[in-house]
């Protein structure tokens, strides 16, 4: 293979519109593009002038798959600006809602988007002919996550119950305890999923990434924590923009996040797992050890197994929260607007999601900044493609192309999210 061109004009089984292109000249990778042609939607612009209370409902519309992540980063940032802190059962309920999103998003990705790659199917529907039980289990697991979101959020896509300070309506205890049996089932099925995904064939590929995730003193991170990495980063969300920058890269038609001075990094399940293994439950850790997957894991193709481990964690955590839930007196704590800037960073299913809002004294948003996880993983996605193509050069082009697609899907990219902040710039 002297000269070769790997092209996927419209990536399938990802969220949003993207493409990949890798050019090899004289045996060397010349050009790698993870192209994003999703049209921009200008969220940061139309948040200006809106009342802070609208931010959770508006930013949810950035992504149909991870709306809760947007709502959570938004409310934390705004509460931070107002010097408010939501604690106790309300904080637990937010965590519970987020568990629901992790379960549905991870189950969707594992079974419907990623597993077909490993088993050689175009999609999960075709896969279901040979793996009916797995696909059925996967769909029901996803449904458990969606049901949690339905109860707490009102609906699974763009939930309506999240507000700055808490919720509009509290769930009754029995609305949550009704889910206990199914969550217990979901723990078993996610453990089965861990074992099943661990038997897949993983391409031999490792890379020494810089992993970036939240780190909390006692919890596996969802809503809170410091932003840390395996290469020494340890900062508060308010310092995010000091350490991370977005670069215009002519060949990629997009802004790419980098760690200043260090470059590409990885966010998402593999990064969280690497940095927070000790915060998983003992059952999840024991299972990870049983299948022989503990940090460091530097093969991104194994992220499918880590997603399954995180799904199991989210089911266990949801069960723990539900069992200890006693409704608080008020669905939300009072918050008082003041002129200030607030920062929020939470763990979306696909990695950290950063929000910053400057709010005026009348509660009007003056400025908003949002950095979604896929923008942050973009540069590592391109790095993987540049390294994979020479590493698997012996594969026929069709298989190599598929391998590249699979490598992009390792990141569970959410292109719709990314694009609303990324440019479609032509080379200047």
């Amino acid at each position, binding site marked *: 293979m002297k000269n070769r061109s790997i092209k996927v004009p419209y990536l399938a089984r990802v969220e949003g519109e993207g493409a990949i292109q890798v050019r090899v000249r004289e045996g060397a990778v010349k050009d790698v593009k993870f192209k994003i042609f999703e049209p921009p939607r200008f969220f940061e612009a139309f948040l200006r002038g809106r009342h802070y209370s609208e931010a959770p409902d508006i930013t949810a519309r950035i992504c*149909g798959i991870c709306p809760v992540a947007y709502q959570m980063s938004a409310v934390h940032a705004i509460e931070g600006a107002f010097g408010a802190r939501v604690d106790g059962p309300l904080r637990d309920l937010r965590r519970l809602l987020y568990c629901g999103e992790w379960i549905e998003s991870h189950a969707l990705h594992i079974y419907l988007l990623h597993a077909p790659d490993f088993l050689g199917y175009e999609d999960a529907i075709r896969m279901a002919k040979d793996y009916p039980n797995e696909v059925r289990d996967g769909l029901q697991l996803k449904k458990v996550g969606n049901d949690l979101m339905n109860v707490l959020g009102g609906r699974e896509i763009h939930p309506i119950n999240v507000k700055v300070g808490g919720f509009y309506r509290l769930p009754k205890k029995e609305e949550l305890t009704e889910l206990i049996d199914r969550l217990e089932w979901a723990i078993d099925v996610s453990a089965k999923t861990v074992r099943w995904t661990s038997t897949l064939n993983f391409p031999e590929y490792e890379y020494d990434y810089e992993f970036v995730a939240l780190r909390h003193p006692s919890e596996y991170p969802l809503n809170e924590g410091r932003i840390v990495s395996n290469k020494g980063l340890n900062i508060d969300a308010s310092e995010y923009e000091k350490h991370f920058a977005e670069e215009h890269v002519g060949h990629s038609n997009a802004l790419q996040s980098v760690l200043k001075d260090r470059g590409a990094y990885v966010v998402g399940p593999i990064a969280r797992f690497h940095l927070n293994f000790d915060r998983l439950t003992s059952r999840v850790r024991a299972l990870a050890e049983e299948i022989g997957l503990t940090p460091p894991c530097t093969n991104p193709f194994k992220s499918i197994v880590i997603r399954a481990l995180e799904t199991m964690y989210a089911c266990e955590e949801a069960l723990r929260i539900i069992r200890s839930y006693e409704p608080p007196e008020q669905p939300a704590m009072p918050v008082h607007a003041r002129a200030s800037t607030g920062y929020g960073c939470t763990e979306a299913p696909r990695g950290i999601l950063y929000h910053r809002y400057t709010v005026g004294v009348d509660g009007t948003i003056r400025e908003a900044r949002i950095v979604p996880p896929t923008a942050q993983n973009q540069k590592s996605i391109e790095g993987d493609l540049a390294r994979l193509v020479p590493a698997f050069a012996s594969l026929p082009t069709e298989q190599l192309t598929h391998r590249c697609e699979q490598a992009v899907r390792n990141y569970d990219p959410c292109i719709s999210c990314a694009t609303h902040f990324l440019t479609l710039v032509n080379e200047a």
Partner: protein
Amino acid sequence: MKQQRKPKLAVWKFASCDGCQLSLLDCEDELLAVAGEVEIANFPEASRAVARGPYDISLVEGSITTPHDAERIHQVRRASKVLITIGACATAGGIQALRNFKDVREFASIVYANPATIEALAKSTPIADHVFVDFQLRGCPINKYQLLEVLSAYLHGRKPNIPNMSVCVECKQRGIVCGLVTHGPPCLGPVTHAGCGALCPSYHRGCFGCYGPKEAANTGSLSAWWAGKGMTERELLWNYRNFNAYAEAFRKESEAHEE
């Protein structure tokens, strides 16, 4: 009419959040049954496999915001026997239609460092502004059971049973006490198309118009009521400017409250 082969279903995306097409994958109990009735011929979010058109049913998500997409929607229409728009973006321009009230270049400069290179039309417009649409399913997001109903209806050659009443009627059907006339949070229920099952009122908040204006929505009367309760012009404006801001009834009413 006897079907010799399974009808071909295609799903197309324009500017959107992907949530409405995700609704199909969120039909956890029905997905495999649906896949048994139709050939999923083009659905990139779910499958690498792409079958050639023409397609018996095309579901279109998202609004038209770029010159390229304004061309592409015509190709989709030509390849589709029935074209159904799903969601507020496709039926009303979506939240991104908030740009329609501003100078898009100003918007681009807020988000992007190099706004001159952003390829974006001045307005985000619904699909029906560009091509003939057979049926419009509303909602931000759509109701997945309504999606199944619409698919089932077109597969069987009947009219979809999608009630076009207001959210108010759904509230009454559920026996929810009217917030508007009791404690009075702003509620768009009287002018908003049904479909959500009066979700927000059942969560103790007012409707904020996810399903867009119902037919013959009397927005003027609702605004007068709200104004009587002390709502400012600015608040009135923003209440109509959300996910369906560019739908005619909401657009006109919001413009009436511009300073």
